[in-house]
């Protein structure tokens, strides 16, 4: 329990640190939203007028605390450009990105775990090397290129089997569930296949390590078959490492998803961030970055807790050290 509290305090400290980093980093950037708004032909006075209208001429420290003050009340601010509340903007984008990431992760887990376990347990070398090849090539495909190949294969209007939409997200959003889901299939497959391949590598390597350890020998000595030992003991021992990898994969997906969202013209978080950053809508960017960071910090927090509770060896080792 003490560990949980300590870890939670670390989580909060990290959040505060990241808010300062984000705020400061964004203020260093050249250009500002007022000149973007004013455009090519505006006289400098017009830019200055817009700046003061938007409160950009206040001291930075005041801007930071007014932002943090808002955050404490759950108010992420209002976009300077779109005039919408940032939480509603992010909610709208998240309704595209999160299902995409979750779907991608489901595909990745289905592919990665299954194939990883099968590949480790396979006794015929030819089968094993085939799996190995799939894992390695799958993980080596540039997301951009993989997406393009899928579009060429399945994209409606362009593909060989033009059965799936490859562009955009329905305007009605999730209220037209079928088409919303359909529009995420290809992007999710792109993300999932590529990440599934690297997950498979990790599964193989984690499980492979465990399989070579004395634990499995011991389990087999107790009368388990190799397969039973792998599934009952091996997977459990490999889980902590896999949880870490999957957790980090979540963060990695945002990176991959930026390109994917752009390629499939999805109005998601990554695409939105690029636009907002391009427009120097700093209030929007800083809140979006903060939300992302908070989310991933939280995932990291959970991963650590899980890791801790899932790996008895680590627990004992640390306790031993503490004593």
């Amino acid at each position, binding site marked *: 329990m003490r560990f949980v509290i300590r870890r939670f305090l670390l989580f909060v400290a990290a959040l505060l640190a990241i808010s300062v980093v984000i705020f400061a980093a964004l203020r260093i950037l*050249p*250009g*500002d939203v007022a*000149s*973007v*708004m*004013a*455009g*090519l*032909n*505006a*006289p*400098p006075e*017009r*830019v200055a*007028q*817009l700046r003061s209208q938007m409160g950009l001429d206040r001291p930075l420290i005041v801007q930071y605390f007014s932002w943090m003050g808002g955050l404490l009340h759950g108010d992420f601010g209002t976009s300077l*450009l*779109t*005039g*919408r509340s940032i939480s509603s903007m992010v909610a*709208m984008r998240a309704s595209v990105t999160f299902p995409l990431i979750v779907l991608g992760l489901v595909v990745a887990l289905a592919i990665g775990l299954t194939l990883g376990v099968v590949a*480790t347990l396979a*006794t*015929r*070398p*030819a089968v094993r*090397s085939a799996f190995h*090849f799939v894992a390695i090539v799958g993980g080596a495909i540039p997301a951009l290129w993989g997406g393009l190949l899928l*579009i*060429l*294969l399945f*994209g*409606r*209007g*362009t*593909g*060989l089997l033009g059965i799936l*939409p*490859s*562009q*955009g*997200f329905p*305007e009605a959003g999730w209220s037209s569930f079928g088409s919303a889901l359909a529009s995420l299939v290809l992007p999710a497959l792109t993300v999932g296949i590529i990440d599934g391949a690297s997950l498979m590598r990790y599964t193989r390597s984690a499980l*492979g*390590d465990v*399989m*070579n350890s004395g634990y*499995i020998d011991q389990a087999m000595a107790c009368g388990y078959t*190799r397969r039973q030992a792998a599934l009952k003991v091996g997977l459990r021992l490999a889980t902590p490492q896999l949880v870490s990898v999957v957790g980090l994969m979540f963060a990695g997906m945002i990176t991959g998803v930026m390109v994917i969202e*752009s*390629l499939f*013209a999805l*109005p998601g978080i990554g695409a*939105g961030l690029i*636009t907002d950053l*391009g*427009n*120097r*809508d700093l209030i929007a960017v800083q809140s979006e970055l903060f939300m992302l960071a908070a989310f991933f910090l939280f995932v990291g927090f959970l991963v650590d807790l899980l890791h801790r509770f899932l790996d008895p060896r680590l627990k004992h080792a640390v306790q031993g050290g503490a004593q």
Partner: protein
Amino acid sequence: MPTNSGAYGENDATDSKATGNNENETAANVAGSSANVSDNATNTGSTGANANHDAEAKNTGSTDETLNAHVKGTSVGNVSGGTGGHGKKKGWTWAIVAAVVVVALIAAFVVIRNNRKASIAPAQVHTADSVTIGLKLAPTNLDIRNQSGSSLDQVLVGNVYEGLVARDSQNKVVPGLAKSWEKSADGMSYTFHLNRGMNFSNGDKLDASDVAWSINELVAKHYHDSEALMNFKSVTATDADTVKLDLTAPYANLLWELACRPGLVFDKNANYDMKTQAVGSGPYTVAKFVPNDSITLKANPKYWGTHKAATSTIVLRYFGDDNAAVNALKSGDVQVLAPVTENLAEPFVKDNANYRVAAGDDTDKFVLAMNSKGAKTSDLRVRQAIRYAIDHKQLIASRGGADKPLGGPIPSLDPGYQDLTGLYPHNVEKAKALMKEAGYTPDHPLELRLTYANTYGTELGDQLRSQLKPIGIDLKVNVVEFSTWLQDVLKNKDYDLSMVDHNESHDFSQWTQDSYYYNYSNQKVKDYYNQAMAASSDSQRDALLAKAARVVSEDAPADWLFNYRITTAMKSGVSGFPLNLNQTLLPLYNVRYMTQVK
């Protein structure tokens, strides 16, 4: 225009004939080649397997020891130890072959798909009640009084908001809310006679008081483009249908400016968030707005005028990615695409039974500005050499050929246009001589930076770099975000060369402002321009502007790479979609999509 679509039509005819003949041949070829591939596959597979036995034999000798020492049970040991086991290489070879086959298949399918021709079944005609249009630059908000950018003009002016006057597809002023107007003899007073029975989409009446209020607000609050209303003195509603606008001095561009943002009329009684909503008097209302993604327009049921919407719902979708845009048109997600990258329009040009592709005139000027006060570019010889060195025809050809060469600051749809391409014809020898005079040769090149926004792609920079190399200029191309360009070039004037698409119309005054990022200043140009703005007749104005433009071009403060003409691709059932100026002025009321129902 007609000449152009004619040219396209001819191409279409010949191309589609060729396609018809090729179709079977290609398919046969593809089948043949894939058969070959699989033959090879079996062969390599078996050799691979043979070779592998040797390797295996070698390996086992050395690994045995480890296995015995560390792991019980040889079969388990193979997991991470002797992974070089049998069949490994075979698996690899097979997989590589499989990958090659997959890639070959994809390539084959692409070829087939591109040559596929859709069949059309004769049937009855049905007018769609919804049309989706794919555009490129998305507005971030709807606040047309504050937010810059032509994407807002494109969607809102004439569709949602209406101006005191309007402009047509030739960029000429035509009646809008005002059905007629008179100008006083001294050119300093305008009287506008409004239509009767006008109203906004919320039901409020629109009369002269709204017009006067809108223009007064613009001036008082310095809204976007308020400075375009030069010499403004006052505007008053003399009665419900008459507006009188007074100037302190004549201003020849006044009417045109009133056809753009400064002339837009807003409801003085309405209270709404202009960033997310729009209440205007035009044929459409904004039903839904998703920033950077889409705008849904619905026909305004309370519309007062003659431009009644032909299609009840129009969805504007924005595609940052050109490929995404083309796929959307191909898959039928959108029925019109404007602009379409010309090189990408090829499949649509070929498939002329289903699509129509045409280019329209526009006022987009790709300006390669050369900092007139820059340390290296202040030398007139360098700037002239650059203009001689650039092969404009080649640039245009590489983009597909629709764009027009432009030798000066005024494009053909703007007043004062004159063909100035003869001033600096492509002449590498002359350029070299000028550079040599300035002290640079290919062996001792002048290093220059070219800064431009990433929205224009990398091709132009690469081409300019290679075109300027032989005359002794080492061009460093710096592609940046638009915001950064605004900061570095527009605001701080920290650049050698800059490229930007100045798509504004009637923007010659840029060359008369010392503070503008060009750093250009010539009293003669200012005098001509001021005389032109004070001119009493349009022809007099145009002649003076042409003179000013010639002086600017001769001074070579910039090179005008080309006049970008927008290429539009649409399904063949679409009619009423404007081609000219459609990135700034896109009246949608007449757009229809007729489909054939079986």
